């Protein structure tokens, strides 16, 4: 714990702040704040990030919805977090996934995915599909029209989350089938694909047929745990 944090402990006031000049290892390293005590409009995001920081592998804890939490906001904030962390995968792909080699967005041979960011869907190269999908998701999830608030979300807007999830999943699957080394390194660090799979299964956001990735090693059969899929 930093010197400053210690002082704060003693004085009884905890300021959860990243001060300029603080070391990278201290970034967001502050004592957890109980969800009930968070009074910010960004409480759900704060809570999710706090839980991920504690242990990114503990999917159960990360995806356990707090009591009395609105379901739509919970899903929405998780999807925001996924898109944000997927940026890490996109950065890694940027250096390897060249438009000359991966000319189309594919996973298995079965489908070619068209990029929905354009007026008429287009056969973008995989790296462009990745970027466009993430940029498009950023615009949609921040759109004043569909998601004007972060504390309550209209039912009609919640329906939008499904299509974002489907597209985002293709980024995982492309990386898995065509850039396995990158995928594995990224997954080892973040457990993001596992978390995502668990997330979409648990809340039945995408149908199981679309989840084409084979079960990842050491993935406990959490998806089959009774009583969770309908939560």
């Amino acid at each position, binding site marked *: 714990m930093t010197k400053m944090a210690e002082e704060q402990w003693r004085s009884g006031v905890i300021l*959860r*702040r990243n001060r*300029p000049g603080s070391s990278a290892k201290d970034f967001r390293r502050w004592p957890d704040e109980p969800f009930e005590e968070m009074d910010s409009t960004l409480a759900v995001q704060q809570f999710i990030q706090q839980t991920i920081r504690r242990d990114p592998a503990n999917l159960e804890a990360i995806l356990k919805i707090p009591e009395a939490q609105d379901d739509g906001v919970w899903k929405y904030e998780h999807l925001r977090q996924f898109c944000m962390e997927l940026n890490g995968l996109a950065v890694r792909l940027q250096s390897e996934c060249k438009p000359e080699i991966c000319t189309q967005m594919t996973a298995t041979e079965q489908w070619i995915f068209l990029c929905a960011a354009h007026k008429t869907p287009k056969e973008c190269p995989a790296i462009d599909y990745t*970027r466009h999908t993430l940029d498009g998701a950023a615009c949609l999830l*921040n759109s*004043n029209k569909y998601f004007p608030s972060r504390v309550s979300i209209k039912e009609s807007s919640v329906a939008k989350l499904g299509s974002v999830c489907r597209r985002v999943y293709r980024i995982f699957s492309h990386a898995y089938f065509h850039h396995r080394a990158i995928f594995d390194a990224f997954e080892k660090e973040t457990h993001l694909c596992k978390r995502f799979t668990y997330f979409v299964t648990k809340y039945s956001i995408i149908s199981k047929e679309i989840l084409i990735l084979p079960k990842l090693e050491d993935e406990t059969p959490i998806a089959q745990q009774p009583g969770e899929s309908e939560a």
Partner: protein
Amino acid sequence: MKIPTAMDDSSVSHHNGGQVGSQIGVSVNNKQNEESSQSVQYSIPGVLHFIQHEWARFEVERSQWEVDRAEFEARIAFLQGERKGQENLKNDLVRRIKMLEYALKQERAKFHKLKYGVDLQQGDMRPPTEEPTQEPEPSERAQWKQGRQLIKQYLQEIGYTDTILDVRSNKVRTLLGLNNEEPADDSSHRNCDKQQHYSMNTALNRKMYEYGGKDQRKGAQQGSGYNEEGMSVQETAAVFANFEFLSNQEMDMDEIDDLDAKQMHHTTTKQGEDVDQEAEDVLTELNLLTESEADGGQGDEFPTVKFPATSATVAREGDGKPLALGELAQLTVSNESEGYDVASASKESFRKTWNAKYSLRSHFDGVRALAFHPTRAALVTASEDHTLKMWDLQRTVPAKKSAGLDVEPLYTFRAHTAPVLCLAMGAPRSEECFSGGLDGTIRVWNLPPPIADPYDSYDPAVLGPVLREHTDAVWSLSCAGGRLLSSSADGTARLWSPRDPRPLLATLRDDAPGSTSAPAAADFADAACRAAVVYTDGTLLLYDLETGQVVLRVPCDSPANRVRSHPTLPLLVTAHEDRHIRFWDAVSGRCAHAMVAHLDAVTGLALDPNGLFLLSGSHDCSVRLWNLDTKTCVQEITAHRKKFDESILDVAFHPLRPYIASAGADGLAKVFV
């Protein structure tokens, strides 16, 4: 005995006189010797000689003074003329702006009427009153001419040739971006009356001609010298031409001022459209002009010191540097920054209130830093979501409540693998920016062109060099004159030349015993010769960038978050965790002023390009604008929400345009106009 005439070569006359005098003196002495009288000290010839000598000396000095006087008078007249010219041009530009504004209002009203069928209530719909042209009174002009002749005479007497006069007058005219090629310019292909076009310019040019004397003759020789400015001259000409057309049109507008309906219903469709077209042309061209002017003005010099336009031209004139329209751009631009509305701008010296206009929503997490493009209405934001985004304020989506406009990002920069913490914009025209991240890297980015589509294919050319020497989070960046100053949690501040093969120029480390804290922020100071670095323990250090040595050490108790140096004065401003903003004399290290500025830690600081206002942001969720002179708060804006205990993380001024912006932990950036 020969008595030298007054205007003879003085040294010769002196010599002759001396000889004669001494000869006589000798003969007299001989006589006196004969009379054995030794006491005679002053002989008549000796006195005469002395008087002659003295008189000649005074004559020389007098002529010297006269030469000096003539020189000074010439200089005074020249400067006066220059000032008049500047004033004329300014008045003309202001008048033109008023015209354009009026035309624009007309258009708006028309458009509104067509769209909603109701008259638009606009504040001031009167056409701008035509100010009397600034022709000097005949008597005054006669006086002028006389004076000029006199000076010319003086100058010729003392050997000033016409060429000097010409060189100077050319300089003045270069300054004004006008030359004689204009009448021959083809840009008058628009259907404008050339005669009138002249009459417009003549008022402006006449004085120049009066000073120039030989301008017409020199025109051809100037040709080559003007090549670089060719564009701006042509643009000026085009604008003049267009403006001419408008001023013709203005008569019509006067007539139909109250009969808008006539124009609205497009009974005279064709003419109406012509006007539209022309007005639009003028607007775009004026835009072009200001932009290119701004470029010319900023050039590669540091944009640190800015004089008021007039004094700048006078001061710079001495350097003998040929000035393009550059300085005048600041004249136009400063008008612009004073406000949209020239009428109100003339009444009050600054805008009193800023209002939120654009909200920039697209980051998934807190926005740590933002920086405006040096010239365009665009900005870049850096976020904890590991990305940077570029936004063009001219490409907007109207939001639901018409209060503000949503902007969609033009481009997303991906390469950092951790939160991006700081950002600096490159020099004008370099089209680059720099970002520093929690991952310890500093990245150079090539900004995509403004026409880029957000969903274009990926071009790795946006990625510039990566500077990896820092071993911990990079918390602040600032850029001046192509050099970059960074500060990092690894305890060092570093100076870079980002695109060199060996980019690291210097490492600034506090060698004082017992100093363990890391720098929190750094900024260039003193025309980029020094670096001001604040440390997490509150110490403020000033490094000399030549030697890398600490030249000033100012201890302070409260941890600091940000430091900024004043663009023109030796003044440093620091933002502190204890809610204070402190002002330091950069020479003596004395604390010039300290004030409790916010209800919580102060995080962001920005100074406006003229150094008159200070913008501060704080974790208390508010942005405050301060008058630097009186140190009073001019405006407070509540802008962002809290995430944990953080709220506003950065604030910024646009270097040329009237925009300010704030970045928040809530993932939003907001732009105020």
